[in-house]
């Protein structure tokens, strides 16, 4: 099977561009979503519409459910045994928890970058970027070559690695490794990119590079980023959601949420009074 480049990309941008204007249709439409780990409830009736082709930041104190929420967006929480969900979670109208839907299909549409960079140690830079396509059965050489360059360019890594693509992925610096992981996630052409505290293990210079790259990603992708760094949320996001004790407390434009939050709990948190 050699799918043409256009076939692998579902009609996401189309859906997003058709209704241009202030009320663009959201990427995620989530209603009354609750999640349990065994008997412990981690998310409580979350209702939120995450806009397409914007950067949405999720903030909140440790244990507030922000990482759980992020992982629920591509069903990665199912890696932990004994979870249960209630409510609805739709991506561009499709129920991601639909009956009989393979989570692998969801994860190809909703990619993820983790807190600690994790390039595969046995693979070269090139193999790391292309692993998602190759292991999903794509063999077309020309297509893979295009995806390799485009993904590395999107991750702002191409110029640094183009001359030694066959070196091991783990030979790169920490910040480069994290950008390699971003390229790897982008190579499968997801509609959404989830980032779970992607800069928490990086130095300020590497962090600013990734923040800059997030700004470019918003042109093509919907980005949801969990961060415990409020400056980062303020700098790089359009919308911010504040979670506390498993509940969505406030969701608004980033500027408004940080300067004039409507909820006192949000205000206390962004002013640094707790967390």
């Amino acid at each position, binding site marked *: 099977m050699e799918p043409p480049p256009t076939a692998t990309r579902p009609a996401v941008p189309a859906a997003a561009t058709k209704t241009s204007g202030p009320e663009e249709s959201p990427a995620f439409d989530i209603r009354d979503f609750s999640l349990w780990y065994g008997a412990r409830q981690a998310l409580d009736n979350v209702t939120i519409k995450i806009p397409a082709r914007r950067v949405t930041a999720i903030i909140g104190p440790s244990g507030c459910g922000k990482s759980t929420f992020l992982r629920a967006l591509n069903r990665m929480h199912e890696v932990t045994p004994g979870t249960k969900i209630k409510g609805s979670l739709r991506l561009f109208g499709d129920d991601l928890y639909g009956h009989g839907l393979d989570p692998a299909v969801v994860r190809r549409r909703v990619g993820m970058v983790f807190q600690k960079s994790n390039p595969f140690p046995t693979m070269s830079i090139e193999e790391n970027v292309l*692993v998602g396509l190759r292991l999903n059965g794509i063999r077309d050489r020309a297509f893979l070559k295009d995806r390799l360059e485009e993904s590395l360019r999107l991750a702002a890594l191409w110029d640094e690695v183009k001359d030694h693509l066959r070196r091991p992925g783990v030979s790169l610096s920490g910040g480069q490794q994290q950008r390699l992981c971003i390229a790897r996630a982008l190579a*499968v052409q997801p509609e959404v990119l989830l980032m779970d505290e992607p800069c928490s293990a990086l130095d300020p210079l590497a962090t600013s590079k990734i923040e800059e790259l997030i700004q470019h990603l918003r042109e093509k992708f919907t980005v949801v980023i969990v961060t415990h760094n409020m400056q980062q949320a303020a700098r790089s996001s359009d919308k911010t959601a504040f979670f506390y004790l498993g509940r969505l407390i406030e969701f608004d434009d980033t500027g408004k949420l940080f300067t004039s939050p409507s909820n006192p709990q949000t205000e206390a948190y962004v002013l640094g009074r707790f967390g």
Partner: protein
Amino acid sequence: MGFSAILVMMPLFLVLYFLVREGASSIDWHFFTQLPKPAGEVGGGMANGIVGSLVLLAMASLIGVPIGVMGGVYLAEYGSDRVNHSIRFLADVLNGVPSIVWGMVVYAVMVASFKTFTFSAYAGGAALGLMMIPLVMRTTEEVLLLVPQSYREAGLALGIARWKIITIIVIKTALKGIITGILVALARVAGETAPLLFTALGNNFWNHNLGQPIAALPLQIFQYAISPYDDWHRQAWAGALVLLLMILGINLLVRLLSRGNSAS
């Protein structure tokens, strides 16, 4: 402290000393190329025993490696805690089963159950292979558990099927460790005599049919050592020295592999 270390090393040096003193003189080109001579004739070698041992180890690997590795993968990647607990316990019990018992079990199943009543290379290989299973299984499990969970998650987040992540990403990452475990298991069964006594039986000639008895170095040593002939005694020493060197070689390979592992 130093004294205890010397005490620990003593047996090894004693073994080496005696093997070299008694056996080195009988090791020559003929020892590796010739069949045993009839009793009373001087000379001859253990070529059939050396080749037989290698054949038996290859057959044992055919059984022990795939089952052991797949069992280890199941334990590390699929099994639930409760099931795993029982499997690990059973594997540890199997590890403790005396090797002669393995020989008896295989004798009952593969030798005595047929009307023709044939000892065979198959039976010998099976006995050694069964012994390898729990060894390979536990080491495979251990090295797979050392592969960080984050690699599996990275694979899942790319929408890759779980079995592909395990076979292509996780096992590849742990490959050196798995091979090391296999070699350790091979070194362990290479010197086994008891499970071969009434399975492979031994053979003074070349084996041309794996359905027939086959020679093995440890068996040959055993047979020669309990014989009344001085020449055979010397040959037994030489055989023991060669066997020890083979096992030492496997262990050196293991060291080389595991050193490469920690460097990467």
